[in-house]
Every structure is written in structure tokens, then in C-alpha cells.
């Protein structure tokens, strides 16, 4: 199992334990997580709040140091600022003094010194996420959904092999969410990156991912690992009326309840 993941230079997570220390108490958030993700795979991590999903994503992005266990992203351990990884946050983190275009460029310029190439890529990306004509708009002038689109374009402008998304659409209304989920799928298909998506929305996880990994409540362990065999390419809005999708969703919901108790997301 570990061999195949390393061979294809996907993501390998072995016996990861992570705890936070504070006021004499030690809080274990990840307790022996092992997971192997193939290159190009789209994996969703779901689970109740506080189960350590984001901590795991932070470890993969190199934002927090590994305490125990072994993690390989590609052929090397995770590190911050690696050219082959990109991270998207729950909040858009757009710089208010930069236009939509300049916000994407802010990130992309750290990876790509060629201004002309950047211009072409950024215009194409903003077009892909439906922001054609808003290149010169400042974040303040954009709706929340539009800001998150800019953040999505910024993430994919890094043209990274590994993309880590932390509840990227958590704060959006249902309609906007569907639109952006489709945009995300199109970008993923185009870039063929390996995606790890943290989500508290089971419907989102089922619609987008190849595999849904269910984590239990704190301390986080892997409770279920379910392949989503819906055909690709998918359309999230078309899935809404697909019975296969709803059957899968119902099955996962059952697994989730069994694994975590009925209080998911509470």
C-alpha cells in the first residue's frame, strides 16, 4: 500500500499523531491516521468539527510541523512554500488593496517569473471561474461568492501537483456553492492535480470526490474510507437529480452516523 503511493508520488500518511498542548492539558486531535492517496486522486475528508481535518491539511501543506508519524507529499515530506503544493483557505484571504487580477498574480508571481505567461494564465483562469470582466474589480466590490472564485483561481494559478482545500465553499449559499463546485471540478480535470478537500458537507464530498474519508470525533481516526464510483466527468448540478448520487449519499450518511454518532457537524 505504502509502496504504490510512493511509486506514483501521491500522498502518503502513516500513523500520524498530533496533539495541542495548553494549560497543562494535552489535546490529541489526530490519533494514528494512515492514508494513501494516489496521484491525481480527489479525496474528501469529512467528519465532525474538531476531528482534526484541518490539522491534517495543515500538516500536508507544511503549515504545522509533523509531531509523530510519517508524511510524504510527492517524493518529499511536506514543507511550506513548496512550488508543487497549493492551499486554499476557508476564508478568501484576498488582499483588499489588489484587484481580482492582481490578487491572483500575487500568488502566481511567487512561482512563475514570466509576466506574459502569467497574464495569459490568469485571464484564462478568471474566465474559467466566471469572472470575465471583473479583472480590475477590488475585493470590496465583489460579492462573497465572487471573492471565493478569485481565491479558487488564485489557488489553481499556482499550477501545483497537490491542492489542499479547506472548506472552500463553507460560507456560501447553496446555489453559489453548486456553481463553484462545478468550477472546481472543471479546474481539477484540466490541471489533473491531486486534491485533498476538507469539508463538513457530505453532499459536497460525494459530488466532488473519488473517495470520501470519514473521520471520527476527537481524537480523529479514520472511521470509513468509501470509493465514490459516480462516472466522470461529473456535473454537480446534474447530480442533484441523479438517483445513484442520492443512494450513495444515503449510504455514506449511514456510515457516518455509525462512525461518529448522530451529532455530525454539531
Amino acid at each position, binding site marked *: 500500500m505504502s509502496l504504490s503511493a510512493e511509486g506514483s508520488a501521491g500522498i502518503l500518511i502513516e500513523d500520524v499523531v498530533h496533539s495541542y498542548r495548553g494549560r497543562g492539558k494535552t489535546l490529541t486531535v489526530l490519533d494514528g491516521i494512515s492514508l494513501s492517496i494516489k496521484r491525481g486522486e480527489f479525496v474528501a475528508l469529512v467528519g465532525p468539527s474538531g476531528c482534526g481535518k484541518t490539522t491534517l491539511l495543515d500538516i500536508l501543506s507544511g*503549515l504545522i510541523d509533523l509531531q509523530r508519524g510519517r508524511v510524504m507529499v510527492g517524493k518529499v515530506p511536506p514543507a511550506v512554500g513548496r512550488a508543487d503544493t497549493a492551499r486554499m483557505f476557508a476564508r478568501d484571504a484576498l*488582499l483588499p488593496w489588489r484587484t481580482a487580477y492582481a490578487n491572483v498574480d500575487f500568488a502566481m508571481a511567487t512561482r512563475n517569473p514570466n509576466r506574459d505567461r502569467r497574464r495569459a494564465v490568469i485571464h484564462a483562469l478568471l474566465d474559467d471561474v466566471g469572472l470575465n470582466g471583473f479583472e480590475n*474589480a477590488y475585493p470590496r466590490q465583489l460579492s462573497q461568492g465572487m471573492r471565493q472564485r478569485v481565491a479558487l483561481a488564485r489557488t489553481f494559478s499556482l499550477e501545483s501537483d497537490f491542492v489542499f482545500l479547506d472548506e472552500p465553499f463553507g460560507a456560501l449559499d447553496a446555489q453559489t456553492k453548486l456553481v463553484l463546485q462545478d468550477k472546481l471540478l472543471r479546474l481539477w480535470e484540466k490541471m489533473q492535480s491531486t486534491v485533498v478537500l476538507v469539508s463538513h458537507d457530505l453532499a459536497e464530498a460525494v459530488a466532488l470526490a473519488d473517495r470520501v474519508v470519514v473521520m471520527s470525533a476527537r481524537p480523529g481516526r479514520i472511521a470509513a474510507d468509501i470509493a465514490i464510483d459516480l462516472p466522470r466527468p461529473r456535473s454537480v448540478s446534474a447530480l442533484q437529480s441523479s438517483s445513484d448520487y442520492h443512494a450513495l449519499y444515503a449510504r455514506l450518511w449511514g456510515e457516518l452516523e455509525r462512525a461518529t454518532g448522530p451529532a455530525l457537524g454539531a
Partner: protein
Amino acid sequence: MPGCGASSSGRPVRRWVREVTRSTDNEAIEGADLSDSDKQLRHRLFIVAGRLVLLALVVGSWEALAWTGLVPAAFIGRPSKFLPLLVEQTLNGKFVLAAVDTLSATLMAFALGGILALATALALAVYPTLKELIDPFIDAMNALPRVALVPLFIVWFGLGTLSKVVSGVSLMYFILLYNTLAGAQSVDPDHLQLSRSLGLSRREVFLRIVIPTAIPSIFVGLRLGLVYTLLGVVTAELIAGGKGLGSLISYYSNTFDADGVFAVLLVLIVVAYALSMVMTRIERWLTRWNR
């Protein structure tokens, strides 16, 4: 595309954004644009006319109070006296020279205090330990009513321009330093997280995140500082005399000439207002993303 109106002023993208966001906010009614701007114009006219009436009322009742003797004219002067005095002294150059004297000292103190404050802020940002070390002293100096130092400055630097400038600098420096530091501390943690994930260096984070974040509060400091620098300069002039507007006020009030005092006060108002208008313009341009 909603609201493809006929009017085409402003940058097309911004206009479009405005229209799109408006129509998603609450189903904009077709043609609402025109009656909106019509209403706005009428409102604007009402406000301007209202202000003129208000001004006339104040001046009128001021004149009436002084003329009837309800309040002695020796205390409050009379608009019919100090307005002509203002015109006369402005035309013969006396007020103009005094204003130039005050203004040049103010601008010198503003520039000097501003540069010193920004340099200090930069040094404190680069050496956080230094900042930790002197933080309480900055707070204490900022809390001190620094006009209380003016008599001391006059003893140290004499009756001339230098003591006026130092007095202005003492106000400007701490106001701008304080605001700049507060601004630099208000960096959004999300932006730092993003910078980290992109692998930006400390230097890049400072130049591309911290400084732009601090700019709005730097401008608040500059605008506030300018007004207070003028205060510092005029205070020094009131105490030390010399050629500035403060000295004129001091002279007129010592000779019980209320009309003279009010005439100079009007000049001061114009000077202060013009200064802060210029600042606001520059600020608006530099922080146009913030609107």
C-alpha cells in the same frame, strides 16, 4: 446582463460591478437610475442651500446680539466690523504674511515629524525587541499633553521659528508613530497564513502585506497629525509672539480688539480647512481600494 443603461461615465468594469451587485441585492427596477440621480441632485441642492441659510443665521444673530448690546461687542466682536477688517488686512498683505509664516512652520514640522515617525516605525518593525523595550515610553509620551512642553521649547530654542517647529514636531511625531504602529499591528491573520503557504520571506511579507495594511491608518495619522501640528505651532506663537497668526491673536486680544481676534481666527479656519482638504484628496487617491 442586467442594467445595460445608456449612461456610460466611470470605469466600465466598476460600473458593471455596481450594477450587477445592485441587481442581485434587490432586483433593480429598470430605469431607476435616472430618478435616483435626479433625487440625489435635489438633495444635494437642499443641503448646500441649507448650509448657506445656517451660516447667514449664525452671522445675523451674532450681529444682532452685538448690535443690541445683549452681549457686549467688546467680547464677541461684530461681523460687520471683523469681516471688512479681514478683507482689508488680507489685501494689504498683513494676514497673508502671518499665514505664510504659520503655514511654513507647520509644513516644516509636519515633514520633519512625519519622516522621523515613519523612520522610527520602520526601525521598530525591523527590531521587535526594541519595540517591546520602548512601548510603554511611547504610550506615556503619547498620553502627555505635549502643548505643556511648549514653554520649555521656547526656553530651549528661543522665540523664533525653531521653537515653533519643534513644538509642531512634538505633536506630529507621536501621533503618526502611534497610528502607524497600530496600523501595522492590524494585519489580517488570513493574509499572513496565505503568505506563509506561498513561502514569502519576512521581508516580502513586510513590504507587500504589512505596509499596504498600515497605509489607511498612516493616513489617519497624517491627517490628524497635520491638524495637531498647526495646533502646536499656533500655541508656540501665542506664547512666544513673532510673526505668525498665533502672535496676531495674542496681540489683538492683549489690546482688547475682539474684531481683530475673530478676523485672524477666520484666517486660521481657512488655513486648517485647506490643509486637511489637501490631505483628504491625497489619501483618497492612495487608498482608493478602500472604498
